[in-house]
Every structure is written in structure tokens, then in C-alpha cells.
């Protein structure tokens, strides 16, 4: 009887052990699964942030690259202007008036200036083509999207993966107007920034005035005088002098696996963990890149001695004859651009805009006015 009772007790204890083992095993497996899940989450999060970071940098790099192209085209305008000045001052230092009108004019020099104007305007047209919205913003955004896709396949097809285009909207195009004066003013170019064309670059020459003051009304030299000033539209500068071009990327996606994603929603693309919600929205990671002048954050317009001297002349309203031997002050957009990653992080929901993101983060608030797209 006693032996039978002991056997029953031992059998009961064996059952307790099995239950205990089952509970402990279940708990450990759950912990193991959570460890696995955490690994997936951490891995996905850093991949998405990397994609957003590298995408923002790629867009900023492309923007800087294209700005450098624009700089070179702007410099071509300057080079042509300088060449015209050289022809008027060095090749023929003093133009001799061939007409006995006592007027400071030489038709050969005037024809040269006309040709220069066309020559310079051709270069200005190249600049405007390079500055157009389609030639600058779109390639930059495409580079950013391509980079994000290269770092995480599938992000690009996600509706919420995007670059913010405009300070208040993700799809607002054409808010950037190129301001122009002079012969190219009839064109409208939506650009990444406001550029203004210098119109008061003066070409001039010295002329040996001929007058009929000689014997019997003959034509004789009557002194060297400056010719009438000719204004020639030339290079471009940024009117607002705000150099930095900001880009903001948003990488959106889901976990690589829905394994143990307790907030997974089949009806949405919800990952439910890093920055998303459990209402079917995407998980979002943001990054901000900036294309900026190499030498600093102020440019591309380098300050001349005064705004009235943006045309490069030493004295406003004076012609080229005063510029012989004069070294031009630094002119518009003579700068080199680079890109840099400016900030990363999470800024709330899919409704976040660059403007909102910058305002939400105090340290960027002062740069809001410089946000371009």
C-alpha cells in the first residue's frame, strides 16, 4: 500500500516537471523570438535610415554637381564679357572716329559691341537652360530616389518614399522663378533659385573725336573722349544671396518580415515599430542634405564692394575705358559647391514637410527661409 502511494506521488511529480518544462520552454522560446524580432527591427531601421541619409546626400550631391555646371556657364559669360572688354581696350586702345561729326562714336567699335552682346547672350541662354527646373531639381530627386532604391529594394515603389519639393508641399513644382532683365527677359525659367541677370555691365571705348574745325572746315582730331556707354546684359547672381539648397528625403517602407510584428496590418503597409503607427501608415525615416558653397555657407553670390558695382566696373555708370588694368571684384556665383548631410531623424507623420521638420527642430528653424526644396 505504501509502495503504491509512493509510486503515485512520483508519477504526479513527473507530471509537474513536464508542465514546468513546458512553461519554461515556452517562455524561453518567446524570448528567443523577441530577440529575433528585435534583430529584424534594428536591422530594418538602420537600413531605412541609411537609405534616407544616402538618398538625401545623393540628391544634394547631384544638386551641387549641377550648380557647379551652372557656375561654369556663368563664368563663360564673364569670360566673354572680359574678352569684349579686352578687344575694346587693348587691341584698339583708342578708336578713331571716321565720321566728322564731333561725336564720340565709332561705328566699327559699335558693331563689335553689338556682336559681343549676341555672343554674351548665347552664353546667358546656356546658363538659363542649365538653371531650369528640369535640368536641376528633377535630376537631383531622381538621384536621391535611385540611391534609396539601391540601398533598400522596394522603397522607391512605395508611395510615401519621396523628396519634398517646395517648402510646403511634396509635389509643388514651379515655385522658383528665375528673374531676368535684359534681352532674355521674355523667357520664364523655373529654377532651383532666383537668379537675376546683371544688366548694367558697361562696354565702352575711347574715341578720337573728329571735328570739322580745321582750315576750310576740314576734319581734324579734336581730342580723345569716352564714347557713349553701352549697357550689356551679362552674368547672373542670386538676388537673395541665400546659397544653400536644401533637400529632404523620406524613406518609407515596412519591415523586411512581418515575423512577430504584433502591430502588422494586412490592409496597410504598417510596420508598427519605428516611427509608424498601427493605422496602416508607413514607417518613415527622414534625412536632410544640403548643397552649399565649398568655402562656406554664404554664396553663391560673392559680395562685391557694393551692390551697385555688381557689374564689375570700378565706378558705376562708367565705361570700360576706366577698367584698363583693373581687377574685377569677385562677381556673381564664382563659387564651388559641395554636398553634405545636414541632419537625420524622425519627424512625426507622413504629413511632415521640410518646413515643418525644420520648425520642429529648433536648431534648424533659423534656416527655414533658405529651404529651397
Amino acid at each position: 500500500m505504501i509502495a503504491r502511494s509512493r509510486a503515485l506521488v512520483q508519477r504526479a511529480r513527473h507530471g509537474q516537471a513536464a508542465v514546468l518544462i513546458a512553461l519554461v520552454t515556452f517562455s524561453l522560446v518567446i524570448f528567443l523570438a523577441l530577440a529575433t524580432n528585435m534583430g529584424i527591427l534594428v536591422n530594418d531601421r538602420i537600413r531605412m535610415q541609411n537609405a534616407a541619409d544616402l538618398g538625401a546626400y545623393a540628391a544634394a550631391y547631384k544638386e551641387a554637381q549641377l550648380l557647379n555646371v551652372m557656375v561654369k556657364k556663368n563664368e563663360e559669360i564673364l569670360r566673354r564679357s572680359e574678352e569684349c572688354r579686352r578687344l575694346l581696350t587693348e587691341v584698339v586702345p583708342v578708336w578713331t572716329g571716321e565720321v566728322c561729326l564731333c561725336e564720340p562714336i565709332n561705328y566699327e567699335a559699335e558693331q563689335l559691341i553689338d556682336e559681343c552682346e549676341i555672343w554674351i547672350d548665347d552664353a546667358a541662354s546656356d546658363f538659363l537652360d542649365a538653371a531650369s527646373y528640369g535640368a536641376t531639381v528633377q535630376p537631383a530627386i531622381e538621384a536621391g530616389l535611385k540611391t534609396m532604391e539601391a540601398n533598400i529594394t522596394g522603397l522607391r515603389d512605395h508611395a510615401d518614399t519621396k523628396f519634398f519639393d517646395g517648402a510646403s508641399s511634396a509635389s509643388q513644382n514651379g515655385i522658383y522663378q528665375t528673374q531676368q532683365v535684359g534681352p532674355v527677359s521674355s523667357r520664364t525659367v523655373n529654377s532651383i533659385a532666383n537668379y537675376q541677370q546683371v544688366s548694367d555691365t558697361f562696354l565702352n571705348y575711347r574715341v578720337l573725336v573728329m571735328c570739322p574745325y580745321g582750315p576750310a572746315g576740314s576734319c581734324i582730331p579734336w581730342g580723345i573722349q569716352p564714347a557713349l556707354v553701352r549697357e550689356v546684359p551679362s552674368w547672373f547672381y542670386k538676388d537673395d544671396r541665400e546659397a544653400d539648397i536644401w533637400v529632404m528625403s523620406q524613406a518609407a517602407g515596412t519591415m523586411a518580415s512581418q515575423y512577430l510584428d504584433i502591430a502588422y496590418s494586412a490592409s496597410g503597409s504598417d510596420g508598427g515599430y519605428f516611427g509608424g503607427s498601427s493605422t496602416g501608415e508607413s514607417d518613415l525615416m527622414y534625412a536632410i542634405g544640403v548643397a552649399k558653397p565649398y568655402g562656406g555657407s554664404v554664396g553663391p553670390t560673392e559680395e562685391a564692394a557694393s551692390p551697385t558695382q555688381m557689374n564689375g566696373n570700378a565706378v558705376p555708370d562708367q565705361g570700360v575705358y576706366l577698367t584698363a588694368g583693373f581687377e574685377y571684384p569677385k562677381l556673381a556665383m564664382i563659387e564651388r559647391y559641395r554636398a553634405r548631410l545636414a541632419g537625420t531623424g524622425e519627424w512625426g507623420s507622413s504629413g511632415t514637410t521640410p518646413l515643418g521638420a525644420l520648425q520642429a527642430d529648433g536648431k534648424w528653424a533659423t534656416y527655414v527661409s533658405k529651404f529651397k526644396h
Partner: protein
Amino acid sequence: MLLTFMVIVILSAMVHLFTVTWASVQAHARAREAVLHETYYLEMNGRRGEADFTQVAGNPVFSRDELTYKVAAFQGDDFGDIAGTASDEPFTFDATASDTSRDDVFGANPVNTSATIQGD
């Protein structure tokens, strides 16, 4: 005995998974840094200075001498070279990186990652 063994195995597995996760984080960060800053910040930040990474394509976009990003796609004699040329050619900067988990009960598992910056 069995229970103790299971606890040890599962706890070891959890530790191993965390080390794999950490290796992944390290490798991703390393690839990202390699494509953006070469070795500069990797060396600055401690014992992982001799990081295992390879820059596959493109020139580093970061200048160790200037301690800043280089002028974008600009070929010249020096930084800020006025006589240089600008280009809008497509660009690609690629880097790969790897790390391994701890070599304990389950052995060392390699994690290989890559990062790229590209544009047409």
C-alpha cells in the same frame, strides 16, 4: 538536467542573436561611413578604427585633408580651383563592409552589407 541544458542553449542563442544584430548595426554603419566619410569618423570613434570595409567604386566624397566634403564632381588642380571643370556625369560611390558575431557557442556569423550613392 534537460531543463538546465535548454535554458543554457536558448539563453546562449539569444545572446548570439544580439551579437548578430550588433554586427549588423556595425556593418551597416561602417558601409555608410565608408561611402560618405571614408575612414575619418570610423577612426575617430574608437577601437573599431581598423574597420573592415572596401570602397568599391568612385572616389571618396570626403577630404581628410580639408575635413569636409569635396567639391561635387569638380575636376581641378585643387579645391576651389577656378580653372577646373565641372561635370554632370553620372556618379556612383559604393562601399561594402562586414562584421561578425561573437565566436562562442554557435560560432561566428559574418554579416556583409553595402552602401551606395548614385545618380544619373
